């Protein structure tokens, strides 16, 4: 692994993600309708909503996998709206997709090396393999095994570790709690909060599990049928009974 000179986060980039008027359609179906979200550095912004609310589409549009019909995505003022996904990744937005983010045919270490290669090309090496293995000892034990032997929780650790190795300014997380035991969810979310506080990354977290997500988020946004229907501090959203019953189901 090449050890490039570690350029710390003191560079000009601050990792503010501005999404404005973002509209995405799949044929005649509008999945996102003029969505405005600003995610600030050092904060966890949770996007909540039921199935089909447009949460995954939001992340897929931001990371360039889906072309928007209208609107803009800015990272620190740079327009990334129509850039290809690989260029957006290089610009510092790491998208951890739901469930299928592990390349199962590669070994655990090879998956991590892919993240580190991106980090090296972005001249960010504050995280290295050793630190990720320290964070996730379960991965260290299986480093030479094909990634398909990993359990669901370990896969989630792998994709998060891989995203960290790329030294992202913005981390887009799609349902990291999906299919995991509550104890593992708490562990992963706790770790995420620590990372945000220590490294100051910007996190845009998409979740159905609203209670867990709001417990670590600073700001909460509720999506319903592709539109933003509520936006408040995480604490206020969790306390709003009417909203909780209407959209979040707890």
């Amino acid at each position, binding site marked *: 692994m090449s050890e490039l000179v570690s350029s710390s986060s003191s560079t000009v980039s601050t990792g503010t993600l501005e999404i404005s008027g973002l509209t995405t359609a799949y044929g005649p179906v509008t999945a996102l309708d003029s969505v405005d979200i600003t995610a600030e550095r050092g904060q966890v912004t949770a996007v909540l909503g039921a199935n089909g609310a447009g949460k995954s589409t939001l992340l897929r549009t931001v*990371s*360039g*996998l889906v072309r928007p019909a209208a609107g803009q995505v800015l990272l620190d003022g740079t327009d990334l709206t129509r850039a*290809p*996904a*690989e260029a957006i*990744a*290089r610009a510092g937005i*790491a*998208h951890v*997709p739901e*469930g*299928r*983010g*592990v*390349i*199962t*045919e*590669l070994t655990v270490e*090879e998956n991590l*090396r*892919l*993240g580190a*290669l*991106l980090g090296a*090309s*972005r001249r960010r090496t504050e995280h290295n393999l050793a630190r990720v293995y320290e964070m996730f000892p379960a991965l260290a034990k299986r480093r030479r095994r*094909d990634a*398909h032997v990993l359990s*669901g929780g370990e*896969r989630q650790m792998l994709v998060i570790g*891989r995203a960290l190795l*790329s030294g992202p300014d913005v981390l887009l997380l799609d349902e990291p709690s999906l*299919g995991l035991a509550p104890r593992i969810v708490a562990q992963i979310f706790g770790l995420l909060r620590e990372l945000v506080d220590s490294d100051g990354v910007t996190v845009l977290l998409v979740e159905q599990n609203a209670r867990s997500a709001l417990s670590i988020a600073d700001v909460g946004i509720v999506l319903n049928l592709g539109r933003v229907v509520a936006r408040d501090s995480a604490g206020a959203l969790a306390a709003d009974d009417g909203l909780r019953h209407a959209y979040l189901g707890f």
Partner: protein
Amino acid sequence: MQQFLNVTLTGLGQGAVYAAFALALVLIWRSTRIVNFAQGAMAMFTTYLALTVIEGGQSYWVALAVALVTGLVLGAGIERLVIRPVEGGPELNAVIVTLGLFVALQALAAILFGSTFQSFPAPFDLRGFTVGGVNIAFTPNSIYIIVAVVVVMLGLVALFRFTDLGLKMRAAAFNQEVSRLLGVRVGRMLTLGWALAAGVGSLSGLLIAGGSLVFPAYMDAVIVYGFVAAVLGGLDSPAGAVVGGLTIGLLLSYVSGYLGSELVALAALVILVAVLLVRPQGLFARTAARRV
């Protein structure tokens, strides 16, 4: 006993060429899930270029270098210009395009180089070694063919296993979307995959032509046997392609030596059907990945 030895050694030499050709098919299948039926025609074309260079007074090795480099360029160019527009569509589209290329390249070669038989020189002696006063069917040229194929295979294994570029190429082949999210320029990796495959294909074309005759359709038999070898090896595995190639070479050589050379094509068909019936995933298929 002596006949058995001769038949075996001939089979190994032939098998090495099928292995190289199967390797080229596997390289493209791995990265784009396309069976490149134009592989043989592309190899034939670069072999004709090599022959032109040799007739121009250059050595075999200069011609080999020219063929490999034009093979790389031809592969990259065909991927960019012809295959890219049909990628992502129904898989049959790309296959039909490669069949069209196959016909077009053969016709173009006939126009440019003529459709008569031309002899192609071999870089090494074509007379068999003499062991204990007995002439065996193993020539210095067979050793060259086997060494060349083994070196190429080891080079590819090293590229895919130990280099960052190889890791990115494998990632792009297995999961395009996740690779893009990790900043891998998937398009470039696919172009590179086609270029490498065409380079390996060019080598197989030159190896089979050495000491023999070339004409626009001279690769046709190799396409069939190389394809059987690739299927036997599992289509996905470079090592499988080499083992499959050697196996097919040996089996066909035994059929030709003991049963009659007219049965060779039939035997290849029987092997193909048998593999597809008994073990359609090939000898070297990985265990199916668990999807969660």
